[in-house]
């Protein structure tokens, strides 16, 4: 079973989808239950990945390789390292929660809705485990289609505009990325005499710097739009605002990570020289920092609850890309961790909006105020999500942000100094949002008659809150999982990095010197 574990995880949602298609459209209750079962199964079946994953091993695990289109050199080749593992687990968890939170929110075209989500999940998992560039591209594009329909069919008033913008914008990036892929593909044929999309094969390429740079920028457009990095971010607020809750949750929690993942899996290892190019790194770091501050400032003045969180995503993803382009172990590890954290906390924030939107059908912040009196449970959960997103220590966001900043500081202290105000503004826009919606007096009669959260709604948050505390208090397992793949990336991009002399050990000596007693278990 182990050798097919990944394929099982990948195709479980597809199996669920196939069964779903045979259910009668009229029996929405049955469809709901089945979709939730399929989502839960998809998550549970991915748990063995965590248990069997061996963090100390380098390279990919659970690998499967089957020839798919031999004439083009395309393989069905999947496998995972620590980075993939975390993102796949995030996808299966969030995929399930997205389905769960739609229980009462979606009332029309229920069957098609759940079908789209199950299809989406196949695409998301596929992106994170593909080791063949062609396969990756297939999954990458596959994700677009269900998301397009989710926004376009079940979205808000401007859903068509948002859906088309989302689709075309990302597609435009993907096409450029495809050009980059094909460049590598043909270059490989020239150098080695056979066609292949295998990433490990493409890594053997020896490309001149100019070509590397062109390919890098082509990839960059594709990934930067997906992240989204400033100035390619404007599809995001529109897509978020119009998408149904579950769509926003998946979009923020998982889809954006495809972009950052792309940088880590393809841009850096395949194009190490271009990635270390001084100009490129500085441009990307600058764009990340602008994203952090710009996203936060724009977020501060939003009147729309969902748009505010959407812009906060731009800010948080700025931290993630800054960590990547710091090009050192802590920056990259922090970035991946923060990607997971962002999935958890921003996922929670969108779920929070979903809860209130289902009751009031408006996202105008001015419509609310004093909700904490009427919905105390909701107030607590929202506060939790807010603090997790604002990076309060002992919750998830802090560890990721701090690690990224450590990496950024190591790369260039000015980067860290410029990024730090993002932490202040992060607290500012969230606290102000919380104050305007939850605190004060109830100023709108409509808010007096809404019920507090029910058990199903709370259940959606429980795993996320648990994960948030876990990462905040005991992030060691996450760092352990990330150590190997991150070191490999750094080794690939900066071979000299680990050659530096090890720290002469004053700390150890100091501990012995000081009359300190160290007790407790490690």
């Amino acid at each position: 079973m182990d050798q097919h574990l990944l394929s099982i995880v990948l195709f479980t949602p597809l199996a669920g989808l196939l069964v779903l298609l045979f259910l009668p459209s009229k029996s929405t209750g049955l469809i709901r239950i089945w979709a939730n079962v399929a989502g839960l199964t998809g998550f549970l079946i991915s748990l063995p990945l965590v248990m069997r994953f061996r963090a100390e091993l380098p390279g990919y695990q659970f690998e499967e390789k089957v020839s798919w289109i031999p004439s083009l050199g395309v393989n069905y080749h999947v496998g995972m390292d620590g980075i993939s593992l975390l993102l796949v687990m995030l996808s299966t968890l969030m995929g399930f929660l997205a389905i769960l939170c739609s229980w009462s929110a979606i009332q029309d075209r229920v069957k098609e809705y759940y079908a789209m989500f199950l299809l989406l999940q196949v695409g998301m998992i596929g992106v994170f485990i593909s080791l063949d560039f062609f396969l990756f591209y297939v999954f990458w594009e596959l994700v677009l289609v269900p998301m397009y329909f989710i926004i376009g069919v079940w979205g808000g008033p401007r859903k068509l505009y948002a859906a088309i913008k989302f689709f075309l914008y990302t597609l435009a990036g993907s096409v450029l990325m495809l050009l980059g892929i094909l460049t590598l593909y043909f270059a490989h044929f020239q150098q080695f005499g056979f066609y292949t999309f295998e990433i490990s094969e493409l890594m053997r390429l020896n490309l001149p710097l100019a070509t590397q740079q062109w390919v890098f920028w082509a990839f960059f457009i594709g990934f930067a739009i997906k992240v989204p990095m400033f100035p390619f971010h404007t599809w995001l607020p529109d897509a978020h605002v119009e998408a149904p809750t579950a769509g926003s949750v998946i979009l923020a929690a998982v889809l954006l990570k495809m972009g950052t993942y792309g940088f880590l899996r393809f841009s850096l290892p395949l194009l190490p020289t271009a990635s270390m190019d001084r100009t490129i790194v500085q441009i990307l770091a600058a764009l990340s920092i602008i994203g952090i501050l710009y996203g936060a400032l724009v977020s501060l003045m939003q009147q729309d609850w969902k748009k505010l969180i959407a812009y906060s995503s731009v800010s948080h993803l700025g931290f993630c890309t800054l960590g990547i382009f710091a090009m050192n172990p802590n920056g990259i590890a922090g970035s991946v961790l923060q990607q997971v954290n962002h999935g958890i906390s921003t996922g929670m924030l969108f779920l929070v909006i979903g809860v209130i939107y289902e009751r009031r059908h408006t996202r105008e912040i001015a419509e609310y105020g004093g909700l904490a009196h009427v919905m105390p449970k909701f107030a607590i959960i929202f506060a939790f999500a807010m603090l997790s997103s604002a990076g309060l220590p002992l919750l998830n966001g802090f560890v990721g942000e701090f690690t990224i900043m450590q990496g950024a500081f190591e790369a260039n202290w000015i980067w860290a100094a410029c990024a730090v105000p993002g932490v202040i503004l992060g607290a500012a826009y969230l606290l102000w949002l919380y104050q305007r919606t939850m605190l004060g007096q109830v100023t709108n009669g409509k808010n007096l008659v809404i019920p507090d959260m029910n058990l199903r709604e709370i259940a959606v948050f429980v795993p996320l809150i648990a994960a948030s505390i876990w990462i905040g208090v005991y992030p060691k397992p996450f760092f352990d999982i990330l150590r190997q793949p991150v070191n490999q990336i750094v080794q690939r991009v900066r071979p000299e990095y680990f050659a530096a002399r090890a720290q002469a050990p004053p700390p150890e000596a100091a501990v012995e010197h000081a009359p300190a007693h160290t007790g407790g278990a490690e």
Partner: protein
Amino acid sequence: MNFLDQIWLIPLFPLFGAALMLLLGKKLDPQPASEVAIAPGVEPVADEHHGGAHASHAQAGHADHGHGGHDAHGHAHSPLKKLINFICPGFVLLSFLFSAGAVWQLSRLPVESRVHQVVQFTWVAGLPFHMANGAMATFSADWGFLLDPLSSVMILVVTGIGFLIHVYSTGYMAHDNGYYRFFGYLNLFVFFMLMLVLANNYMLLFVGWEGVGLCSYLLIGFYFHKKSAGDAGKKAFIVNRVGDAGFILGMLLMMSVLGTLRFTDVNAILHSGQFPVEVAGFGVLSAISLLMFFGATGKSAQVPLYIWLPDAMEGPTPVSALIHAATMVTAGVYMVARSAALFQLTPHTSAVVATVGAFTAILAATIALVQNDIKRVLAYSTVSQLGYMFLAAGVGAYWVAVFHLFTHAFFKALLFLCSGSVIHAMGGEQDMRRMGALKKKIPITHWTMFVGSVAIAGIPGLAGFFSKDEILWQAYSSPLGSKLLWFVGLATAAMTAFYMWRLMNMTFYGKSRVAAETEKHVHESPAAMTVPLTLLAIGSALAGWLGTPKLWNLGESFRAFEIWLEPVFASAAVGAAHEGAEHSTGVEWGLMCLSVAIAIAGIALARYLYCIRAEIPDRIEARFKPLHTLLYNKWYVDELYDFLFVNGLCKGGGLLLGSFDRNVVDGGVNGAGWLTRFASKVSIWWDTWVVDGTVRFTAFSVKLLSYPVCILQTGRVQAYAFFVVVGVLAFLGYYVAR
């Protein structure tokens, strides 16, 4: 039992209490629906979208609490609610007992081994990184605890005074809604504060540091139906975050330079002589210490970030006493003292610390002179006293800073709790202009507050005198000090005595200005409140005797505080030796007498102005109107910050960038979309008229050319047959005719 190895439990007790309260507290203390605060004139309305599908029964909205601050009428005690009175203070008491046990065992150890670490696991187990000097180190932080003489002072203050304030709160908050919530937050605060003072590295300290900020936010905003409370909480959190940003950068730089954040390692490296004292210029260590001090100015309310503390008085008074006087705000002082090894190497930063401390002390004191809100006076007084502590730390007298922290914790907690008792008695009134002559009506409150005010004023024998006088002496005599710093300290001392006794006179003596309606209800507080007051008053009277001046030669046990802390601030001894050689005892006696005289003068002046000749202050106010307005409005610093940062940088910048985003960035995208559509329209036109036009023109011309043919090509068989016949006949005719 070995308490030393169990110090990791000390923070966990209150955490457990907090979890219990916040998860289950509502069951113990069910709240009536009347808690819902509704703005006037708002009626429940069903949402038109949903037609009330969700609407359970409408929760009847009653009027708001009316007056804020303190609610004198409330719902009846439930027996379960009493349970909270035992659970929450009980957990803090447990922490206190464990702390006391651990400190006792620490004191039994030989002096040089009074550093006890308990590391439980690696909390942040990060990856390797390059230090500034190119060496590799690992980014990591322990979940570890450290007990040494410094943290032992802090845990005793936090748990001891924390316990008394918990007990006091059971009386003070008895009539408030959200009782469980209050105690949950309060216990959570004690947890974070203990994490802060027990952490064995900067990063874990930062956990407590931000955590206490969170609790402060929650407790300031406890009466969250009031907009001012929400505003104040938010302001406190964000201003603290500004400081924290500096702290974070300081930690990052420290890690980059020293490769570690563990206190013992940092101190070992700094003591090793690897880094010389940065006398000549502003070096990297100076940058670290300055960034960290910037963090301290946020948490400990120093210039330029002091502005949040006065607003924090929106919180319930026990919160002001515990968080905004005795413990949390002293975290910055603790952190600087904890980093003494660093600050000893950075005289430039130390000078900044001392200057900022002195400046804050006098600035806040001037504002306190004219405030009329009893809690605001105390708030500015706290800012001012914290300034004293930084002044001491800045001139290298770290033990004195901690000593003042210690004595201040007693008398300032006492003063706040007394003011709470006054407010309680007055049914929520905080304006001193509507008080007066309360001495007889609330005697215990009066006498305890009397002790506190004498103590803070610096009258010999009580706690404040010893610590404040030592600060002034150090500011005068230390090699890092100066006569100017000393003088600012002295002037502040005079103002302190004056504004505190202005407060006492306006509240307790003279003529009563209490509203007749309120007058009837004025009552002494219950025992739950007066017993803690009494205990704190005893503390305020006696705590100073642990640190009597060397000059008095009372023996070692009367200088226990300095001796206890000596191993922590090892090289402070150098300064002490220096000072002994340079100054005669005569100078020290003289300065001491001067400061006592000035304190008495301040008290006497306040007595004269606000009790004996109560009409004079108004005349002075009228005479110096602009100055009074300036002071009363706190030098307009808040307005300046609002203008520059809140409205200017953040809101203005946000609006500007928001429109930039819509018009330029998204404009570009939409523009690209428009261009595409335009190109598409042009293509359609081209396609329709040129490409397809050519095709159709070809067809058209063919058609045109075919017209003549068309005349013949009718498609009628008969016609064709006719033509065939005609043709045949023509051919036949031709052949026949030829």
